[in-house]
């Protein structure tokens, strides 16, 4: 089976090609089923590969399958090859698994859309690219996937492209990501020029052995982190992600919550030996950026009223948490949180999609309320997602968040406090969301008049294709924590599984105060979550306290505005100036010379005798002079 791992990305690609050729003929819903089956079979292959790998001893769990040689020139030898090892199999498992569920959901969600088959074409293409990214044997194959998911993200954000905001958001996402990609490209140039290879195995080997100088390792790590900041929406490049919510909700769930945006965390983990070999300030920078992003985005989420915007900022915040883990040397915890986050955030997004669907495309939470009565399954599953993200035991998010906080405490207590505050805010804004959407008074009745064309707005529960994924994901959000529990050797399954990949770079905290008091930290985390939830109930359910939602938070600290103004103002002016210089100065000189010659020629016209013999004589004379000059020069020098 391990020799067939190339099937994992190729199956969704095949699905995309089928829909490219036959999509319109297949139509709604068959095109969706083709795509779903393609992804499901990819999941199946991954599961089989996983079990085969499970049967191997730990040190043999690395298998390369080469498809064909891709770019080979001189010492640069890059194959289109995929690598199955514990890390890539974990990634592939949750990517294909969640993709399958979201494909299924999208059959219901996209029902009736005029571009139904095209949606699934893009979605399958995305899954292919994402799998190339995580399964790549070298940086270049990962980069192929990395840019591929970026392109698919662009197509899908601007899927409803007649809407101007969607078109702008798609472009913004692609261009901002490209800024990050500069880092990834430069990292590849540096890695190749110092080590002569782009293969993960070879690069990580040389980092282990010390062949890779610390300064080079730091530069490579930092450049890759720039790329990660773009793809995984960290400060200062996160700007595109909230806008990306313009895409259909299944896209937000799949690409902008569960999978693509975690690529940066994956890349950092894949290259963990390089980070380990760099100067110590690099992990610190990563941890600080992660913590700052986590806190920043959580503060913004508190004041959002769009149901998807809350989740978008929440995603940025949770990704920050993962980078906080990476910077603290907690790679296992980062992957752990990545997986549990994929479960509950996909669940929350799909739940919000179900709400939006049932509310006839209303996304403003202020017009919702009491929806649990009309949408019981959606409400029930959403509540499970809420408990998971808020950090309530025994739901999945509690365990992964706690694991991160444990390592952060051992590494840097200041950042631990930031992490706790973020956790508190997370519990607070998610409770706010649940209350505004599912509890309280039904506000959709008051506004039904405004929905003129829709007639009376009566929310409805979604169909089974949409609810089944919700139920499965809520199940995973309940038990997902079981893969890594803090109760010692028999419960740390994920840690043992990932050990061959990250063991040597992972921070060792066994001797620290934090580890010895880990149950105390567990209790602190529970208290924080409960306080956050209680405070939110006090404000939004009981109205004991007036909500504090300042404009500055709603506007995300005006960062996006400032950036837009910078680009539209000085940025555009500079570009215009350069364009003006080109048209008037650079070209002006050219035309000026032309004019000058014309004027001189006019006065010299008298020399034009009209005798061809005279011209020929002059030309020959000129040639002789030139030749003579060169002969003499040559002779003299």
């Amino acid at each position, binding site marked *: 089976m391990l020799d067939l791992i190339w099937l994992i990305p190729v199956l969704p690609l095949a699905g995309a090609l089928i829909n490219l050729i036959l999509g319109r003929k297949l139509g709604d819903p068959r095109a969706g089923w083709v795509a779903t089956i393609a992804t499901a079979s990819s999941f199946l292959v991954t599961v089989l590969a996983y079990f085969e790998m499970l049967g191997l001893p730990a040190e043999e769990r690395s298998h390369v399958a080469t498809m*064909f*040689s*891709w*770019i*080979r*020139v*001189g*010492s*640069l030898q890059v194959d289109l090859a995929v690598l199955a090892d514990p890390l890539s199999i974990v990634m592939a498992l949750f990517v294909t698994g969640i993709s399958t569920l979201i494909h299924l959901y999208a059959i219901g969600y996209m029902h009736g859309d005029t571009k139904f088959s*095209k949606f699934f074409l893009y979605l399958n293409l995305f899954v292919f690219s994402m799998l190339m990214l995580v399964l790549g044997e070298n940086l*270049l194959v990962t*980069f*192929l996937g990395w*840019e*591929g998911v970026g*392109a698919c993200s*662009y197509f899908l954000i*601007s899927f409803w*492209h*007649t809407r*101007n905001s*969607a*078109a*702008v958001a*798609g*472009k913004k996402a*692609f*261009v901002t990501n*490209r*800024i990050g*990609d*500069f880092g990834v*490209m*430069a990292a*590849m*140039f*540096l890695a*190749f*020029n110092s080590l002569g290879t782009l293969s993960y195995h070879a690069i990580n080997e040389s980092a282990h052995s010390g062949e890779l100088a610390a300064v080079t390792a730091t530069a490579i790590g930092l450049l890759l982190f720039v790329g990660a900041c773009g793809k995984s929406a960290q400060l200062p490049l996160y700007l595109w992600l909230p806008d990306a919510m313009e895409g259909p909700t299944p896209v937000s769930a799949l690409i902008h919550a569960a999978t693509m945006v975690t690529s940066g965390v994956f890349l950092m983990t894949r290259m963990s030996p390089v980070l380990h070999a760099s100067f110590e300030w690099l992990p610190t920078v990563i941890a600080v950026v992660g913590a700052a992003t986590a806190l920043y985005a959580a503060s913004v989420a508190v004041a959002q009223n769009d149901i998807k915007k809350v989740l978008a900022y929440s995603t940025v915040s949770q990704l920050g948490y993962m980078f906080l883990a990476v910077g603290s040397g907690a790679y296992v915890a980062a992957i752990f949180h990545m997986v549990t986050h994929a479960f509950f955030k996909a669940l929350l997004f799909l739940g919000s999609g179900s709400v939006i669907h049932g509310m006839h495309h209303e996304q403003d939470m202020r017009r919702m309320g009491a929806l649990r009565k009309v949408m019981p399954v959606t409400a029930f599953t959403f509540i499970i997602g809420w408990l998971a993200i808020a950090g309530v035991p025994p739901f999945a998010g509690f365990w992964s968040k706690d694991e991160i906080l444990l390592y952060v405490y051992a590494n840097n207590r200041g950042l631990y406090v930031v992490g706790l505050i973020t956790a508190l805010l997370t519990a607070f804004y998610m409770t706010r969301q649940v209350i505004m959407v599912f509890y309280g008074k039904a506000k959709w009745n008051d506004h039904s008049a405004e929905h003129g064309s829709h007639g009376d707005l009566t929310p409805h529960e979604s169909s089974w294709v949409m609810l089944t994924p919700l139920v499965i994901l809520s199940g995973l959000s309940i038990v997902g924590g079981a893969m890594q529990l803090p109760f010692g050797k028999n419960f740390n399954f994920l840690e043992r599984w990932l050990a061959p990949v990250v063991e040597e770079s992972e921070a060792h905290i066994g001797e620290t105060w934090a580890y010895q008091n880990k149950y105390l930290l567990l209790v602190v985390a529970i208290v924080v979550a409960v306080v956050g939830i209680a405070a939110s109930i006090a404000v939004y359910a009981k109205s004991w306290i007036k909500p504090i939602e300042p404009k500055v938070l709603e506007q995300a600290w005006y960062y996006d505005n400032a950036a837009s103004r910078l680009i539209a103002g000085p940025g555009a002016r500079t*570009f*215009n100036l*350069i*364009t003006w210089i*080109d048209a008037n100065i*650079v*070209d002006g000189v*050219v*035309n000026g010379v*032309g004019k000058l010659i014309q004027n001189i020629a006019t006065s010299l016209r008298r020399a034009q005798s009209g005798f061809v013999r005279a011209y020929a004589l002059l030309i020959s004379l000129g*040639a002789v002079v*030139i*030749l003579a000059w*060169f*002969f003499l*020069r*040559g002779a003299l*020098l």
Partner: protein
Amino acid sequence: MIASSAEVLNFPILTLLVVLPVIGSVVVALLGGSRPEWMKLAALVSSVSTAALSLWLLAAFKTGEAGFQFVSQHAWISQWGISWHLGVDGISLFLIVLTGILFPLVIVGIDPHHNETSYFAWMLLLQAGVMGSFLSLDLFLFFVMFEIVLVPMYFLIGGWGYDQRVYAATKFFLYTMAGSAFMLIGIIATVALAQRDLGVVTFDLVKIAEGAKFSTNAARWLFLSFAIAFAVKVPLFPFHTWLPDAHTQAPTGGSVILAGVLLKMGTYGFLRFGVYLFPQAAMWARPAIFSLAVIGIIYGAIAATMQRDLKRLVAYSSVAHLGFIVLGTFALSSQAVTGAVMQMVNHGVSTGALFLLVGMIYERRHTREIAELRGIQHVAPIFAGVFTVVMLSSVGLPGLNGFVGEFLILIGSFGPARWWTLVATVGVVLAALYLLWAYQRVFHGEPDEANSTFKELTLREGLLMSVFVAIIVVSGIYPKPILDRIEPSVGALIEHVEGQTK
């Protein structure tokens, strides 16, 4: 670039590649008046058989060999040592094939609308000149071919172009001509100086490059005289201003050929003549050329971003793309030069395709103003899809052809030109900006009245574009057959340079 062996084939395929279009051109001109319906057939037969020949050449080309193949050498003006000397190696092979394929596509795919006879005659003559330039291994022959190209292009722009065609054609002609004047002096001087080392007067490229020992100063001057001609042709910043005018005013077919193969005569010239003849001087000039190339990348991208005319935007994007090629050419590492040669072809394919698409937009809407266009994807999704693929190729998306060349250039230039390469990489970001922004304004949004009747891709257009899309996708996923043929010749050239500069 080993001196060509005695491998002279009986069948002079290279000569035929140059002569066939000339015959075609003459036949077209003769038939035009009396039998217009046969005239078009003649143009077609000539260009298609040239394409077939070039594809046969590709198939028969021996992979893995560095030297010139299919060499054809006949004395021409023997007292001056001028000969009809043609040869193909990995560096010129794909440019020949591109020239072979592009012309029939343009002839079949685009209607000139008026004066068909002279249009086709000029087109075929142009093809002969381009073929000759890429095949010549004799300095004099190269110069003749290099200059011949100007004449048909001048008439194509001036005769079938848009409003300011005469201005643009004249500017193109004079500017390029002025550049070549320096090269003519350079060629004569090169031959004169080489005579001392070789003992005979010869214009033979290989003999001079392998045998002559120019003094440092002389080589620098000679290199500069060639470099000016090529810099204008490429065009390298700041000699680029003829290009936007020529491109915008040229008829679609002219733009496709101009971007597709004509500009490559400059980059190819740098490699085949500048670097090969004067390695030391080329190394000496490197910092300046790197700088101009990188300025061109950023500057071209910025200027492209702010253009209001879609065709001008593509023209400025060419300035940026050619900057990458020049950077790679002079980085002189195996990856960079191989990437540069491949990128010459890639740029021809993707920018050629972009000009075709812009031409189709003009045919439908009679405007190229970005502000006049909107929401085309809604009414013509297939057209938009093809445009997207071509655009992403130009942006350098991995999996498509543009990435392979660009990536090889950058990764190969990073060693010899680290900081220049980093700045050049910023150009990759900007490429996404100007193309996606233009795409958003032209294709996204709700189409207004004028754009709501935009016609979907026709069958003929679709077939035409499918050739480009196929090349874009296939050579992006599996570039090995291309790289394997380019690399040995590049390797030999680099060895030659290293041998001379030690």
